[in-house]
């Protein structure tokens, strides 16, 4: 029950397999076994949010799950945000256009959390306090969050405009 086993995950629309022990976190499996290094480790205890991915459309901290737990679910990582032709998602585009990243280490986690938020219809996007509370699950040391807030608003407007 504890040895290595083959684990197959659906990530970014593809079936990917690798071998790992049950104790290997989902974050480590994505990064070191599947080579999807876009998801980052900032703390490994579920506080900083750098490891955030989408599991069945919901944001989760991949450092707080084990790879074996993710079988049978639909995973999306930062590598899965862009279109097949490389078109940036609204969140990605907005982050770059609004200088919402500097070193970029926390950015994948933010992008996944924001992607979920946009899919929910960006509730309370104009309420400064509510939006900042929503974003407080991801820590950034570089940007001071000012441009991240701006980028999320821009992305929300972009999505609304596109949907209209």
């Amino acid at each position, binding site marked *: 029950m504890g040895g290595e086993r083959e684990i197959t995950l659906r990530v970014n629309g593809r079936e990917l397999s690798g071998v790992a*022990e049950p104790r290997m976190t989902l974050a480590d499996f994505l990064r070191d076994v599947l080579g999807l290094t876009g998801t980052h480790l900032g703390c*490994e205890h579920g506080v900083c949010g750098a490891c955030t991915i989408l599991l069945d459309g919901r944001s989760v901290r991949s450092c707080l799950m084990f790879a074996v737990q993710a079988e049978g679910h639909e995973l999306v990582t930062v590598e899965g945000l862009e279109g097949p032709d490389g078109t940036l998602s609204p969140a990605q585009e907005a982050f*770059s256009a609004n200088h919402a990243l500097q070193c*970029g280490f926390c950015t994948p986690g933010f992008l996944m959390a924001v992607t979920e938020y946009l899919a929910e219809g960006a509730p309370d996007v104009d309420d400064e306090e509510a939006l*900042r509370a929503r974003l407080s699950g991801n820590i950034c040391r570089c940007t001071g969050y000012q441009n991240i807030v701006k980028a999320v608003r821009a992305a929300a407007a972009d999505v609304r405009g596109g949907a209209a």
Partner: protein
Amino acid sequence: MSSTGPVGQATHPYAPVRDPDEPEVVPPRHVGRPLRRTEDQRLITGRARHVGDLRVPGMVHAAILRSTFPHAELTRIDTSGALAMDGVLAVVTAAELEGKMGPFLEAARTEISTLLKEKVRPTLKSCPMPVLAQGRVFWIGQPVAAVVARDRYVAEDALERIEVEYEPLPVVAGPEAALEPDAPVLHPELGDNVQTTFTVSVGDPDGVFASAPRMLRARLSMGRIAANAMETRGVLAAYDAGRGELTVWDANARPHLVRTFVSEMLGMPADAIRVIGPDMGGSFGTGMFPEDVLIPFLARELGVPVKWLEDRRENLANTRHARDQLHDVEAAFDDEGRVLAIRDRFLVDAGAYNAYAITVSYNSAAHLRNQFGIDHYRVESLSVLTNKAPVTPVRGAGRPEVTFVMDRLVGLIAAELGLDPIEVRRRNLIRPEQMPYAMGMPYRDGVDIVYDRADFPDQLEKALELFGAEAFRREQEEARARDRRIGLGVSSYVEGSGYGPHEGAVVRIDTTGHVTVHTGARPHGQGLETTLAQICADQLGVRPEDVTVRGGDTATIAHGIGTFASRSAVTAGSAVGIAAQRLRRKVLAVAGEVLETDPADLELVEGRVAARGTPERSVALAEVAHAAQPGPRAKLPEGMEPGLEVTHYYVPPTVTFASGTHVVGVEVDEETGFVKLLRYVTVDECGQMLNPMIVEGQIHGGVAHGVGNALFEEVAYDAEGQLLTGTYMDYLMPTAAEVPPIAVGHQVFPSELNPFGIKGCGEGGAVSPPAAIANAIVDALAPLPVRIDRVPLSPERLLRLIVEAKASAGAA
């Protein structure tokens, strides 16, 4: 909002004399524009390559066993259990390094200028850190042993099998305890726990104190913080035994220094070592570490590539701490609130080793007088060793501590005189007509401080206007009537930036006409790949998208210093700009051969060389590059070396002085001590901005860092030296909910010290927030006389101060 105005009339004494042979500076065209960053593409698509993402065939993983005692004898280490585990390749302690590795170099060797040593004569005691603990441990987190195993999971399993016996020794828990006559001495060879001291004196402070109308004394302090870049440290090293060559990928801001350390400590020629800085998730200072050399050593010893990634638990304990200063300060002043003299004695709790000697403490001494014209000053500094992790320069590097001291003094003086603290500031600011202003003491590079052009009074007014101070005052009165406590606080700073000794750039045009810049600067979020391309584009005559900038690879440029201390825009920017100018001249000379035209009649615009007035006589850069190739068909003017490449190392005459004024509005919940930051405004002056969007981003990030410093972040040790803040649940990084909206205004006074007018801006944002927030809290609670003498300020601490103030006001 920005303003450029005629200020300061005399030319700066250090302004370099323009060499008439040097090409003219091309006025900014791409510089100054908020260009979107080229580095973004890989960062937003998950294609960045940090040390943790790199894979080398055969790679194995290291983990470090760290001391769990603050001060103890290491009486026994038994690694046999770990070694016996399946998947473990090696376990090393200090014993295995004996004779194979030199002592860890002290950064102070290179950090303190000879000129400063001559002028100030600091006492410095050498005390090199061992790479792995030898005989004793001195701080929680100190490396004791290293395991190398097939993966990190197994390596951590092996750590648990290493048996270590610690014999606890009495703990030196703080700097005052360290100075007690019967305090245990951490390193007996030093005699006591004072590792460095210096005193600087300007004017006649004692004389002025003796005759001054008023005086006050205060004890002010700033707690300890941790740098906390979002990426923890990491090193990957691979050794080619056949050639005797090491390749090291390091998340370190100073790759050339890493190479120096590895070279000297492992006894290898520098050129046999390549240090590469891959993508890096922030740095914020920090410096050199045992692992930077230990991991390359292990790779060489074991003959397999070794990767080590620090985890956050190690990082919080160990990498590195900062601030932690205690000031006993006196101010002499008159009835108008003009500060006549300052005397300060401060202790730095340096932790168990102080490799950076006086880098931070001297910065403190040099910046304490801030934007104020105080001509009589004495500062005495002691860096004291304790059983805590070593401190290093971290964003602000000594300036936040003294900005807090000075700005709180202003508040205390104002309170004593019944004046508005903002008015007291006005009365003390150096006026623009007084610029350039000599401060009467050397900067850390040994050159006497002379402030650049600036207009501090205008900066203050602009900041207040941008904040809406008048409207806020009305709001404050109304709020008071409804028992809501809101207040505003001001702080200003001056920042010496663009520290030397040099930085270099290689600018090269290849045969496709593409321009590549290699620099010793090592970007980790500052956008140098974009901003240096902007300056190169302007000075060379190409488009920014035609320029690729790469930094931090010792194989691409012989000498480099690195990115820290708000230096790269100034130093690498100037190096790139000057190299680009010279390269343009070369391009035109070769193009002149190609077009058979006098180069003086040619111009290089957007990547094409054309004759002025007859644009049809033109040639593409690619063709010029071909023509410049060595060989019999090269079209080169007499005496010119082939190739379109220029290398330039820029040596700044001294630092430039950027400045800023911050205003913050806060709301205080009197019943709980909770502080809400309503909004934050800065007006910053950092010379010619290469990219205003990036400058503002730096300010935003600095402010957030300062907010953490003021209200949330503290590395806490208990009286027995145990670390209390070992996780992110306990060490509190501010999130988007705690950092207020930030608006940035600008003043622009191009520096006279470099051809492009650039000043550094990376740290300024982090310098003023603790002072501004403390001042705002005092303002919010007025007339209740709350004394804020220390940051960080937790809600509980503030509530206690409020209760104390109420008690004393009641008693009065």
